[in-house]
């Protein structure tokens, strides 16, 4: 392999690296091969001594600090580079569409959020109504605020107990529903965020 072939192959192996890292790595190997040749080795010997481009790349990647690796992952494995002029212009031109889209997404998200929680609060109100209504009926029945004498009072008390019973039976549904709504809201908000990204 010639020096140029080695350097080209290594450059290809390192294409995922940020520009600075790549340049530093390449110049290191270029220098090393050059030094060996200066020492009297032939080009082929010097390149062989450097190992294969794959091995060199592997050691370089292994040697990256966690911060470098995190930076590479954030830029989605591509090279971090500044936006080109064209990209910048396109961005500003796209704003008339982009801004309404963002507003729409945010509105949808907000609506989902409000509606979901409104549903939950309504349900809690229903359960509370059953219980409170039931208690109210029991109290009124006992106090006698009903026509029909004893039978009427008993009926009201009975209805009250039944009503409160339903309410009490429904109480265990509140917590799971809360968790479900929380999960659904989180999930849909992330979906919205992903769509925008």
């Amino acid at each position, binding site marked *: 392999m010639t020096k140029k072939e080695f350097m080209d192959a290594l450059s290809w192996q390192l294409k995922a690296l940020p520009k600075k890292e790549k340049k*530093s*790595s390449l*110049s*290191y*190997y*270029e*220098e*090393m091969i*050059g*030094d*060996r040749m*200066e*020492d009297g080795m032939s080009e082929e010997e010097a390149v062989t*001594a*450097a*190992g294969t481009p794959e*091995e*060199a790349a*592997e*050691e*370089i990647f*292994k*040697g990256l*600090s966690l911060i470098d690796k995190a930076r590479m992952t954030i830029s989605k494995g591509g090279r971090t580079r500044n936006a080109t002029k064209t990209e910048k212009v396109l961005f500003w031109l796209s704003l008339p569409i982009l801004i309404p889209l963002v507003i729409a997404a945010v509105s949808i998200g907000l609506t989902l959020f409000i509606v979901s929680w409104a549903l939950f609060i309504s349900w809690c109100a229903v359960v509370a109504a059953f219980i409170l209504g039931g208690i109210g009926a029991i109290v009124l029945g006992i106090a006698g605020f009903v026509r029909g004498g004893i039978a009427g009072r008993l009926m009201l008390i009975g209805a009250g107990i039944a009503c409160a019973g339903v309410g009490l039976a429904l109480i265990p549904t509140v917590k799971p529903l809360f968790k479900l709504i929380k999960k659904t809201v989180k999930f849909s908000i992330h979906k919205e965020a992903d769509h925008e990204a």
Partner: protein
Amino acid sequence: MDIQLKRGLLEVCVLAAIKDADSYGYQIIKDMKACVEISESTLYPILRRLETDGLLTVYSVEHMGRLRKYYRITDAGRNRIEEFRQDWQEILAIGRFILGEGETE
């Protein structure tokens, strides 16, 4: 040698290679040949980490029409070598324990 063991030792080894005089990549490899064969692929990440940790600094010198990178040890680097002097006693003691030498029965 076990790779974990080697990695720690190699870093201090590289520092020792530049402690008396600034040196460059290929020269460091040649100097270290006295005790260990190291390839440039292994040396590169070591040099990078030493630089990141502030144990050496890098500068470029023009040499025969191209740029050659020289490495200079820092005070922190010298401290690291001193720390190794103490580590070495511990390593010897652990070695004796592992190999069961010098133990009174």
